[in-house]
Protein backbone atom coordinates (compact mmCIF):
# COMPACT_ATOMS: atom_id res chain seq x y z
CA UNK A 1 0.00 0.00 0.00
CA UNK A 2 1.28 3.45 -0.83
CA UNK A 3 1.71 5.30 2.42
CA UNK A 4 2.88 8.86 2.79
CA UNK A 5 6.11 9.04 4.77
CA UNK A 6 6.36 12.84 4.50
CA UNK A 7 3.37 15.15 4.47
CA UNK A 8 3.90 18.81 3.72
CA UNK A 9 0.88 21.06 4.05
CA UNK A 10 0.65 24.78 3.37
CA UNK A 11 4.36 25.24 3.98
CA UNK A 12 5.62 28.79 3.46
CA UNK A 13 8.96 30.39 4.11
CA UNK A 14 9.79 34.07 4.04
CA UNK A 15 13.34 35.12 4.87
CA UNK A 16 14.13 38.06 7.13
CA UNK A 17 14.95 40.26 4.14
CA UNK A 18 11.43 39.67 2.82
CA UNK A 19 12.36 37.12 0.14
CA UNK A 20 9.54 34.62 -0.24
CA UNK A 21 11.27 31.28 -0.83
CA UNK A 22 8.32 28.89 -0.47
CA UNK A 23 4.67 29.66 -1.12
CA UNK A 24 2.00 27.35 0.26
CA UNK A 25 3.73 24.09 -0.60
CA UNK A 26 1.60 20.95 -0.42
CA UNK A 27 3.37 17.70 -1.17
CA UNK A 28 3.13 14.12 0.02
CA UNK A 29 6.08 11.82 -0.38
CA UNK A 30 5.30 8.15 -0.67
CA UNK A 31 7.18 5.58 1.39
CA UNK A 32 9.82 3.85 -0.69
CA UNK A 33 9.72 6.07 -3.77
CA UNK A 34 12.35 8.16 -5.51
CA UNK A 35 10.97 11.63 -6.08
CA UNK A 36 12.90 14.23 -8.03
CA UNK A 37 12.42 17.91 -7.25
CA UNK A 38 13.20 19.82 -10.41
CA UNK A 39 13.51 23.54 -10.66
CA UNK A 40 15.76 26.32 -11.85
CA UNK A 41 18.28 28.01 -9.54
CA UNK A 42 16.59 29.83 -6.69
CA UNK A 43 13.31 27.95 -7.16
CA UNK A 44 13.20 26.92 -3.50
CA UNK A 45 14.35 23.28 -3.69
CA UNK A 46 17.11 23.57 -1.08
CA UNK A 47 14.93 25.75 1.16
CA UNK A 48 12.23 23.06 1.06
CA UNK A 49 14.73 20.39 2.12
CA UNK A 50 16.21 22.68 4.77
CA UNK A 51 12.76 23.33 6.24
CA UNK A 52 12.05 19.60 6.53
CA UNK A 53 15.46 18.83 8.04
CA UNK A 54 15.49 21.67 10.60
CA UNK A 55 18.16 23.88 9.04
CA UNK A 56 15.69 26.65 8.21
CA UNK A 57 12.88 27.94 10.40
CA UNK A 58 9.41 27.42 8.94
CA UNK A 59 7.31 30.61 8.57
CA UNK A 60 3.94 28.82 8.39
CA UNK A 61 2.47 25.44 7.58
CA UNK A 62 3.21 21.95 8.81
CA UNK A 63 5.53 19.14 7.92
CA UNK A 64 5.28 15.65 9.35
CA UNK A 65 7.65 12.76 8.87
CA UNK A 66 6.34 9.28 9.58
CA UNK A 67 3.43 10.91 11.43
CA UNK A 68 5.61 13.11 13.67
CA UNK A 69 5.71 16.89 13.47
CA UNK A 70 9.17 18.14 12.44
CA UNK A 71 9.15 20.88 15.07
CA UNK A 72 7.46 19.28 18.08
CA UNK A 73 8.98 15.82 17.59
CA UNK A 74 12.17 16.92 15.89
CA UNK A 75 14.29 14.24 17.50
CA UNK A 76 12.10 11.46 16.11
CA UNK A 77 11.83 12.96 12.62
CA UNK A 78 15.49 13.89 12.24
CA UNK A 79 16.63 10.42 13.33
CA UNK A 80 14.78 9.04 10.29
CA UNK A 81 16.40 11.41 7.81
CA UNK A 82 19.80 11.43 6.16
CA UNK A 83 20.82 14.58 4.32
CA UNK A 84 23.40 14.88 1.57
CA UNK A 85 23.87 18.64 1.26
CA UNK A 86 24.67 20.48 -1.92
CA UNK A 87 27.83 22.03 -0.52
CA UNK A 88 30.61 19.75 0.62
CA UNK A 89 31.15 20.82 4.23
CA UNK A 90 33.67 18.58 5.92
CA UNK A 91 36.21 19.10 8.70
CA UNK A 92 39.35 19.09 6.52
CA UNK A 93 41.85 17.52 8.91
CA UNK A 94 39.77 14.59 10.14
CA UNK A 95 40.00 11.02 8.88
CA UNK A 96 37.25 9.63 6.65
CA UNK A 97 36.22 6.91 9.09
CA UNK A 98 36.13 9.36 12.01
CA UNK A 99 33.79 11.81 10.28
CA UNK A 100 31.44 8.98 9.33
CA UNK A 101 31.46 7.57 12.87
CA UNK A 102 30.87 11.09 14.20
CA UNK A 103 27.73 11.46 12.08
CA UNK A 104 26.40 8.11 13.27
CA UNK A 105 26.84 9.13 16.91
CA UNK A 106 25.42 12.58 16.30
CA UNK A 107 22.23 10.94 15.07
CA UNK A 108 21.93 9.01 18.34
CA UNK A 109 23.32 5.64 17.26
CA UNK A 110 25.98 3.60 19.03
CA UNK A 111 29.16 2.75 17.15
CA UNK A 112 28.75 -0.11 14.69
CA UNK A 113 32.00 -0.63 12.85
CA UNK A 114 30.61 -3.50 10.76
CA UNK A 115 27.90 -1.22 9.37
CA UNK A 116 30.32 1.66 8.78
CA UNK A 117 32.59 -0.73 6.90
CA UNK A 118 29.65 -1.88 4.76
CA UNK A 119 28.81 1.71 3.82
CA UNK A 120 32.41 2.67 3.10
CA UNK A 121 32.89 -0.41 0.94
CA UNK A 122 29.67 0.29 -0.94
CA UNK A 123 30.90 3.80 -1.70
CA UNK A 124 34.38 2.58 -2.65
CA UNK A 125 35.86 4.48 0.31
CA UNK A 126 37.13 1.59 2.42
CA UNK A 127 40.73 1.85 1.22
CA UNK A 128 40.59 5.60 1.92
CA UNK A 129 39.20 5.24 5.44
CA UNK A 130 42.35 6.50 7.17
CA UNK A 131 42.99 9.35 4.76
CA UNK A 132 42.35 12.89 5.89
CA UNK A 133 39.52 14.71 4.11
CA UNK A 134 41.93 17.32 2.76
CA UNK A 135 43.78 14.57 0.84
CA UNK A 136 40.68 13.43 -1.08
CA UNK A 137 39.52 14.43 -4.55
CA UNK A 138 36.23 16.30 -5.03
CA UNK A 139 34.43 13.14 -6.10
CA UNK A 140 35.69 11.23 -3.07
CA UNK A 141 34.57 14.02 -0.76
CA UNK A 142 31.12 13.76 -2.28
CA UNK A 143 31.11 10.04 -1.51
CA UNK A 144 32.08 10.89 2.08
CA UNK A 145 29.08 13.19 2.56
CA UNK A 146 26.86 10.40 1.24
CA UNK A 147 28.48 7.94 3.68
CA UNK A 148 27.85 10.42 6.51
CA UNK A 149 24.20 10.75 5.51
CA UNK A 150 23.79 6.95 5.43
CA UNK A 151 25.76 6.35 8.64
CA UNK A 152 22.70 6.13 10.90
CA UNK A 153 20.66 3.89 8.59
CA UNK A 154 18.04 6.52 7.67
CA UNK A 155 14.65 5.57 6.25
CA UNK A 156 14.58 8.76 4.20
CA UNK A 157 17.45 10.20 2.23
CA UNK A 158 17.59 13.73 0.88
CA UNK A 159 20.07 14.26 -1.91
CA UNK A 160 20.55 17.91 -2.76
CA UNK A 161 22.20 18.05 -6.19
CA UNK A 162 24.23 14.89 -5.51
CA UNK A 163 25.91 14.77 -8.90
CA UNK A 164 26.67 18.46 -9.38
CA UNK A 165 30.24 18.75 -10.62
CA UNK A 166 31.04 15.03 -10.65
CA UNK A 167 32.33 13.09 -13.65
CA UNK A 168 30.16 10.79 -15.73
CA UNK A 169 31.46 7.57 -14.13
CA UNK A 170 30.73 8.76 -10.63
CA UNK A 171 27.30 9.97 -11.72
CA UNK A 172 26.42 6.50 -13.02
CA UNK A 173 27.76 4.97 -9.79
CA UNK A 174 25.55 7.31 -7.79
CA UNK A 175 22.50 6.39 -9.82
CA UNK A 176 23.21 2.72 -9.20
CA UNK A 177 23.64 3.40 -5.49
CA UNK A 178 20.38 5.35 -5.34
CA UNK A 179 18.53 2.53 -7.08
CA UNK A 180 20.02 -0.01 -4.65
CA UNK A 181 19.02 2.10 -1.66
CA UNK A 182 15.47 2.26 -2.98
CA UNK A 183 15.47 -1.53 -3.31
CA UNK A 184 16.45 -1.67 0.37
CA UNK A 185 13.36 0.39 1.19
CA UNK A 186 14.85 3.87 1.56
CA UNK A 187 12.69 6.76 0.41
CA UNK A 188 14.74 9.15 -1.69
CA UNK A 189 14.13 12.82 -2.36
CA UNK A 190 16.45 14.17 -4.96
CA UNK A 191 16.95 17.69 -6.24
CA UNK A 192 18.79 18.02 -9.45
CA UNK A 193 19.69 20.27 -12.31
CA UNK A 194 20.32 17.31 -14.56
CA UNK A 195 16.94 16.45 -15.96
CA UNK A 196 18.31 13.24 -17.44
CA UNK A 197 19.05 12.23 -13.86
CA UNK A 198 15.38 12.56 -12.91
CA UNK A 199 14.40 10.85 -16.15
CA UNK A 200 16.75 7.97 -15.35
CA UNK A 201 15.95 7.22 -11.72
CA UNK A 202 12.86 9.00 -10.40
CA UNK A 203 9.44 7.41 -9.88
CA UNK A 204 7.76 10.79 -9.53
CA UNK A 205 8.68 14.27 -10.61
CA UNK A 206 7.81 17.48 -8.82
CA UNK A 207 8.56 20.72 -10.62
CA UNK A 208 9.18 23.75 -8.40
CA UNK A 209 9.46 27.29 -9.65
CA UNK A 210 9.29 30.60 -7.79
CA UNK A 211 8.73 28.80 -4.49
CA UNK A 212 5.62 27.01 -5.75
CA UNK A 213 5.03 23.45 -6.80
CA UNK A 214 3.95 23.63 -10.43
CA UNK A 215 3.14 19.96 -10.80
CA UNK A 216 3.78 16.60 -9.20
CA UNK A 217 3.20 13.49 -11.25
CA UNK A 218 4.44 9.99 -11.87
CA UNK A 219 7.25 10.23 -14.34
CA UNK A 220 5.65 7.76 -16.75
CA UNK A 221 2.30 9.62 -16.70
CA UNK A 222 4.00 12.96 -17.12
CA UNK A 223 5.98 11.75 -20.08
CA UNK A 224 2.86 10.26 -21.62
CA UNK A 225 0.72 13.30 -21.01
CA UNK A 226 3.17 15.98 -22.05
CA UNK A 227 5.85 14.06 -23.84
CA UNK A 228 4.68 14.46 -27.45
CA UNK A 229 6.50 12.60 -30.17
CA UNK A 230 7.80 14.12 -33.35
CA UNK A 231 7.73 11.66 -36.26
CA UNK A 232 9.82 12.29 -39.37
CA UNK A 233 8.65 10.29 -42.41
CA UNK A 234 11.07 10.19 -45.33
CA UNK A 235 9.61 9.40 -48.77
CA UNK A 236 11.08 8.43 -52.11
CA UNK A 237 9.83 11.59 -53.85
CA UNK A 238 8.74 15.15 -53.08
CA UNK A 239 5.30 15.58 -51.61
CA UNK A 240 3.00 18.53 -51.09
CA UNK A 241 1.68 18.16 -47.59
CA UNK A 242 -1.32 20.42 -48.37
CA UNK A 243 -3.16 17.29 -49.45
CA UNK A 244 -3.09 16.01 -45.82
CA UNK A 245 -2.98 19.22 -43.86
CA UNK A 246 -6.62 19.51 -42.92
CA UNK A 247 -6.68 16.08 -41.43
CA UNK A 248 -3.27 15.83 -39.70
CA UNK A 249 -0.94 18.02 -37.67
CA UNK A 250 1.94 18.13 -40.16
CA UNK A 251 4.82 20.29 -41.31
CA UNK A 252 7.01 19.96 -44.36
CA UNK A 253 10.53 18.65 -43.86
CA UNK A 254 13.61 20.48 -45.18
CA UNK A 255 13.98 18.41 -48.33
CA UNK A 256 10.30 18.44 -49.39
CA UNK A 257 10.40 14.63 -49.55
CA UNK A 258 9.80 14.30 -45.84
CA UNK A 259 6.87 14.99 -43.57
CA UNK A 260 7.07 15.90 -39.90
CA UNK A 261 4.14 14.79 -37.76
CA UNK A 262 3.40 15.82 -34.17
CA UNK A 263 1.91 12.85 -32.40
CA UNK A 264 0.50 12.60 -28.89
CA UNK A 265 1.41 8.94 -28.34
CA UNK A 266 -1.86 7.92 -26.70
CA UNK A 267 -3.92 4.87 -27.54
CA UNK A 268 -6.83 6.96 -28.78
CA UNK A 269 -4.71 8.74 -31.37
CA UNK A 270 -4.71 6.66 -34.57
CA UNK A 271 -3.55 9.49 -36.82
CA UNK A 272 -0.18 7.90 -37.58
CA UNK A 273 -1.86 4.75 -38.78
CA UNK A 274 -4.24 6.77 -40.99
CA UNK A 275 -1.44 8.92 -42.39
CA UNK A 276 0.62 5.90 -43.42
CA UNK A 277 -2.40 4.41 -45.17
CA UNK A 278 -2.93 7.65 -47.10
CA UNK A 279 0.73 7.83 -48.10
CA UNK A 280 0.55 4.28 -49.40
CA UNK A 281 -2.62 5.03 -51.36
CA UNK A 282 -0.85 8.01 -52.95
CA UNK A 283 1.78 5.63 -54.38
CA UNK A 284 4.59 7.03 -52.30
CA UNK A 285 7.24 4.76 -50.88
CA UNK A 286 8.28 5.23 -47.27
CA UNK A 287 12.06 5.12 -47.04
CA UNK A 288 12.47 5.79 -43.35
CA UNK A 289 10.57 6.73 -40.20
CA UNK A 290 12.37 8.47 -37.34
CA UNK A 291 10.77 9.31 -34.01
CA UNK A 292 11.98 11.97 -31.64
CA UNK A 293 10.42 11.90 -28.19
CA UNK A 294 9.94 15.13 -26.33
CA UNK A 295 12.27 14.83 -23.36
CA UNK A 296 11.57 15.61 -19.75
CA UNK A 297 13.82 18.60 -20.25
CA UNK A 298 11.45 20.09 -22.82
CA UNK A 299 8.47 19.33 -20.57
CA UNK A 300 10.29 21.01 -17.71
CA UNK A 301 11.08 24.09 -19.79
CA UNK A 302 7.45 24.28 -20.95
CA UNK A 303 6.17 24.12 -17.36
CA UNK A 304 8.68 26.62 -15.98
CA UNK A 305 8.22 29.13 -18.80
CA UNK A 306 4.43 29.23 -18.41
Amino acid at each position, binding site marked *: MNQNIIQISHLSKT*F*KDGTVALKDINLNIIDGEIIALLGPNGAGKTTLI*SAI*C*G*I*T*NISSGEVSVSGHDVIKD*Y*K*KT*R*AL*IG*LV*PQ*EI*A*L*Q*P*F*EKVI*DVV*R*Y*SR*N*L*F*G*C*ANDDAYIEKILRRLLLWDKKDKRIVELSGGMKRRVIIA*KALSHEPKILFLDEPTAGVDVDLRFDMWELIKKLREDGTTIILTTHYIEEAEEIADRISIIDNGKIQLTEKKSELMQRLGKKVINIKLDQEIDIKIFRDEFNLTQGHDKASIIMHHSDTKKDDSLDRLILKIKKGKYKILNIETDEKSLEQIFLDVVSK
Partner: protein
Amino acid sequence: MNLYAIKAIYVFEMSRTLRTLIQSIASPVISTVLYFIVFGSAIGSRMEDISDVSYGSFIVPGLILLTVCLQSISNASFSIYFPKFIGSINELLSAPVSYLELVIGFIMAAVTKSMTIGLIILITASFLVDIEIKHPIWMICILFLSCVSFSLMGFIVGIWARSFEQITIIPDLIITPLVFLGGSFYSISLLPDFWQKVTLFNPIVYLISGFRWAFFGNADVYIGYSILAILVFTFACILIIWRIFKTGYRIKS
Protein backbone atom coordinates in the same frame (compact mmCIF):
# COMPACT_ATOMS: atom_id res chain seq x y z
CA MET B 1 19.03 12.76 26.12
CA ASN B 2 21.18 12.03 23.06
CA LEU B 3 24.29 11.00 24.99
CA TYR B 4 25.96 9.58 21.90
CA ALA B 5 25.83 13.01 20.30
CA ILE B 6 27.21 14.80 23.38
CA LYS B 7 30.06 12.30 23.55
CA ALA B 8 30.67 12.56 19.79
CA ILE B 9 30.94 16.36 19.91
CA TYR B 10 33.16 16.20 22.99
CA VAL B 11 35.50 13.56 21.57
CA PHE B 12 35.66 15.32 18.20
CA GLU B 13 36.61 18.62 19.84
CA MET B 14 39.15 17.00 22.12
CA SER B 15 40.78 15.16 19.24
CA ARG B 16 41.26 18.53 17.52
CA THR B 17 43.09 19.73 20.64
CA LEU B 18 45.25 16.62 20.84
CA ARG B 19 46.17 16.99 17.19
CA THR B 20 47.36 20.53 17.86
CA LEU B 21 48.78 19.78 21.28
CA ILE B 22 51.70 22.19 20.94
CA GLN B 23 49.54 25.22 20.16
CA SER B 24 46.84 24.14 22.59
CA ILE B 25 48.92 23.61 25.68
CA ALA B 26 52.57 24.49 25.20
CA SER B 27 52.08 28.07 24.04
CA PRO B 28 49.98 29.28 27.01
CA VAL B 29 52.40 27.54 29.37
CA ILE B 30 55.44 29.17 27.77
CA SER B 31 53.88 32.64 27.83
CA THR B 32 52.97 32.19 31.50
CA VAL B 33 56.49 31.13 32.38
CA LEU B 34 57.71 34.30 30.67
CA TYR B 35 55.35 36.38 32.84
CA PHE B 36 56.78 34.71 35.94
CA ILE B 37 60.34 35.32 34.85
CA VAL B 38 59.66 39.00 34.13
CA PHE B 39 57.15 39.93 36.84
CA GLY B 40 57.85 37.25 39.41
CA SER B 41 61.64 37.03 39.45
CA ALA B 42 63.10 40.07 37.69
CA ILE B 43 60.71 42.81 38.84
CA GLY B 44 58.99 40.92 41.67
CA SER B 45 62.18 40.60 43.73
CA ARG B 46 62.20 44.39 44.08
CA MET B 47 58.50 44.60 45.02
CA GLU B 48 57.13 44.65 48.55
CA ASP B 49 54.98 41.77 49.78
CA ILE B 50 51.24 42.31 49.39
CA SER B 51 49.25 41.21 52.47
CA ASP B 52 52.22 39.10 53.58
CA VAL B 53 52.33 37.31 50.24
CA SER B 54 55.43 37.60 48.07
CA TYR B 55 54.77 39.41 44.78
CA GLY B 56 55.77 36.32 42.79
CA SER B 57 53.12 34.23 44.54
CA PHE B 58 50.59 37.07 44.52
CA ILE B 59 50.37 37.17 40.72
CA VAL B 60 49.79 33.40 40.34
CA PRO B 61 45.95 33.46 40.60
CA GLY B 62 45.71 36.48 38.27
CA LEU B 63 47.98 34.88 35.70
CA ILE B 64 46.05 31.61 35.77
CA LEU B 65 42.76 33.45 35.31
CA LEU B 66 44.15 35.65 32.53
CA THR B 67 45.15 32.58 30.52
CA VAL B 68 42.09 30.52 31.43
CA CYS B 69 39.62 33.27 30.46
CA LEU B 70 41.30 33.95 27.12
CA GLN B 71 41.71 30.24 26.35
CA SER B 72 38.08 29.48 27.22
CA ILE B 73 36.86 32.21 24.90
CA SER B 74 39.14 31.29 22.03
CA ASN B 75 38.49 27.53 22.31
CA ALA B 76 34.73 27.81 22.52
CA SER B 77 34.39 30.55 19.90
CA PHE B 78 36.55 28.69 17.40
CA SER B 79 34.79 25.38 18.00
CA ILE B 80 31.41 26.80 16.95
CA TYR B 81 32.65 29.39 14.44
CA PHE B 82 34.61 26.84 12.38
CA PRO B 83 31.56 24.60 11.59
CA LYS B 84 29.70 27.81 10.74
CA PHE B 85 32.54 28.89 8.46
CA ILE B 86 32.87 25.60 6.56
CA GLY B 87 29.12 24.89 6.61
CA SER B 88 29.17 21.70 8.67
CA ILE B 89 26.91 23.42 11.21
CA ASN B 90 24.03 22.25 9.01
CA GLU B 91 24.76 18.70 10.07
CA LEU B 92 24.48 19.74 13.72
CA LEU B 93 21.23 21.58 13.03
CA SER B 94 19.71 18.65 11.14
CA ALA B 95 20.73 16.06 13.75
CA PRO B 96 18.38 14.89 16.51
CA VAL B 97 20.34 16.95 19.02
CA SER B 98 18.78 19.51 21.35
CA TYR B 99 20.43 22.88 21.83
CA LEU B 100 21.23 21.93 25.40
CA GLU B 101 23.04 18.77 24.26
CA LEU B 102 24.91 20.76 21.64
CA VAL B 103 26.05 23.37 24.16
CA ILE B 104 27.01 20.72 26.74
CA GLY B 105 29.21 18.91 24.18
CA PHE B 106 31.04 22.02 23.02
CA ILE B 107 31.32 23.69 26.43
CA MET B 108 32.54 20.55 28.18
CA ALA B 109 35.32 20.26 25.62
CA ALA B 110 36.30 23.92 25.94
CA VAL B 111 36.18 23.69 29.77
CA THR B 112 38.34 20.54 29.79
CA LYS B 113 40.96 22.29 27.68
CA SER B 114 41.11 25.50 29.70
CA MET B 115 40.93 23.70 33.08
CA THR B 116 43.86 21.55 31.99
CA ILE B 117 45.83 24.62 30.93
CA GLY B 118 44.98 26.37 34.22
CA LEU B 119 46.18 23.41 36.26
CA ILE B 120 49.34 23.03 34.15
CA ILE B 121 50.15 26.71 34.78
CA LEU B 122 49.56 26.20 38.50
CA ILE B 123 51.92 23.23 38.54
CA THR B 124 54.50 25.15 36.48
CA ALA B 125 54.23 28.12 38.86
CA SER B 126 54.71 25.87 41.88
CA PHE B 127 58.22 25.12 40.61
CA LEU B 128 59.03 28.83 40.40
CA VAL B 129 57.42 30.33 43.52
CA ASP B 130 56.06 29.13 46.85
CA ILE B 131 52.35 28.46 46.62
CA GLU B 132 50.05 27.43 49.41
CA ILE B 133 46.37 27.00 48.63
CA LYS B 134 44.20 27.80 51.66
CA HIS B 135 40.86 26.71 50.15
CA PRO B 136 41.67 24.10 47.48
CA ILE B 137 38.06 23.03 46.90
CA TRP B 138 36.95 26.63 46.44
CA MET B 139 39.95 27.19 44.18
CA ILE B 140 38.85 24.31 41.91
CA CYS B 141 35.20 25.48 42.04
CA ILE B 142 36.04 29.08 41.07
CA LEU B 143 38.43 27.90 38.37
CA PHE B 144 35.77 25.56 37.00
CA LEU B 145 33.06 28.24 37.07
CA SER B 146 35.40 30.71 35.38
CA CYS B 147 36.11 28.16 32.63
CA VAL B 148 32.39 27.44 32.17
CA SER B 149 31.31 31.09 32.11
CA PHE B 150 34.04 32.24 29.71
CA SER B 151 33.51 29.21 27.48
CA LEU B 152 29.83 30.13 27.30
CA MET B 153 30.86 33.66 26.44
CA GLY B 154 33.22 32.30 23.77
CA PHE B 155 30.36 30.27 22.33
CA ILE B 156 28.33 33.47 22.02
CA VAL B 157 31.27 35.24 20.37
CA GLY B 158 31.66 32.33 17.91
CA ILE B 159 28.02 32.51 16.89
CA TRP B 160 28.07 36.30 16.65
CA ALA B 161 31.31 36.46 14.65
CA ARG B 162 31.10 36.75 10.89
CA SER B 163 34.85 36.54 10.28
CA PHE B 164 37.96 35.14 11.92
CA GLU B 165 38.96 38.71 12.82
CA GLN B 166 35.76 39.22 14.79
CA ILE B 167 36.54 36.16 16.93
CA THR B 168 39.57 37.95 18.34
CA ILE B 169 37.92 41.35 18.84
CA ILE B 170 36.20 40.53 22.15
CA PRO B 171 39.19 38.83 23.85
CA ASP B 172 41.69 41.40 22.56
CA LEU B 173 39.72 44.59 23.03
CA ILE B 174 37.55 43.81 26.02
CA ILE B 175 38.67 40.81 28.05
CA THR B 176 42.44 41.39 28.06
CA PRO B 177 42.16 45.03 29.24
CA LEU B 178 39.56 44.08 31.86
CA VAL B 179 41.73 41.27 33.23
CA PHE B 180 44.85 43.47 33.32
CA LEU B 181 42.92 46.29 35.01
CA GLY B 182 41.07 43.85 37.26
CA GLY B 183 43.99 43.34 39.59
CA SER B 184 45.84 40.44 37.99
CA PHE B 185 49.19 41.97 38.85
CA TYR B 186 48.26 44.26 41.75
CA SER B 187 45.88 44.60 44.66
CA ILE B 188 43.19 47.16 43.93
CA SER B 189 43.79 48.54 47.43
CA LEU B 190 46.99 50.05 45.97
CA LEU B 191 44.91 52.30 43.71
CA PRO B 192 43.79 55.83 44.69
CA ASP B 193 40.27 55.93 46.22
CA PHE B 194 38.56 57.18 43.07
CA TRP B 195 40.04 54.44 40.85
CA GLN B 196 39.25 51.83 43.48
CA LYS B 197 35.58 52.75 43.12
CA VAL B 198 35.75 52.81 39.31
CA THR B 199 37.45 49.45 39.22
CA LEU B 200 34.54 47.87 41.11
CA PHE B 201 32.51 48.20 37.89
CA ASN B 202 34.92 45.74 36.28
CA PRO B 203 33.38 42.28 36.71
CA ILE B 204 36.77 40.60 36.41
CA VAL B 205 37.81 42.22 39.73
CA TYR B 206 35.34 39.95 41.54
CA LEU B 207 36.60 36.90 39.72
CA ILE B 208 40.29 37.53 40.43
CA SER B 209 39.61 38.60 43.99
CA GLY B 210 37.60 35.44 44.67
CA PHE B 211 40.25 33.24 43.11
CA ARG B 212 42.99 34.96 45.10
CA TRP B 213 40.94 34.47 48.28
CA ALA B 214 40.90 30.70 47.57
CA PHE B 215 44.71 30.82 47.44
CA PHE B 216 45.65 33.19 50.24
CA GLY B 217 42.54 33.60 52.37
CA ASN B 218 42.28 37.36 51.87
CA ALA B 219 40.70 39.33 49.07
CA ASP B 220 39.98 42.81 47.72
CA VAL B 221 36.22 42.24 47.79
CA TYR B 222 34.02 40.05 49.97
CA ILE B 223 34.11 36.43 48.71
CA GLY B 224 30.27 36.23 48.67
CA TYR B 225 30.16 39.05 46.11
CA SER B 226 32.75 37.24 44.02
CA ILE B 227 30.75 34.01 43.90
CA LEU B 228 27.57 35.97 43.16
CA ALA B 229 29.27 37.86 40.33
CA ILE B 230 30.52 34.63 38.70
CA LEU B 231 27.09 33.03 38.99
CA VAL B 232 25.31 36.09 37.56
CA PHE B 233 27.76 36.18 34.65
CA THR B 234 27.28 32.44 33.98
CA PHE B 235 23.49 32.70 34.01
CA ALA B 236 23.58 35.78 31.79
CA CYS B 237 25.59 33.81 29.21
CA ILE B 238 23.19 30.85 29.47
CA LEU B 239 20.26 33.21 28.93
CA ILE B 240 21.86 34.76 25.85
CA ILE B 241 22.64 31.34 24.37
CA TRP B 242 19.08 30.20 25.04
CA ARG B 243 17.82 33.28 23.17
CA ILE B 244 20.25 32.65 20.30
CA PHE B 245 18.94 29.15 19.73
CA LYS B 246 15.34 30.19 20.28
CA THR B 247 15.59 32.78 17.52
CA GLY B 248 18.22 31.03 15.40
CA TYR B 249 20.34 34.21 15.50
CA ARG B 250 23.14 33.95 12.92
CA ILE B 251 22.91 30.16 12.77
CA LYS B 252 19.52 29.49 11.21
CA SER B 253 17.94 31.40 8.34
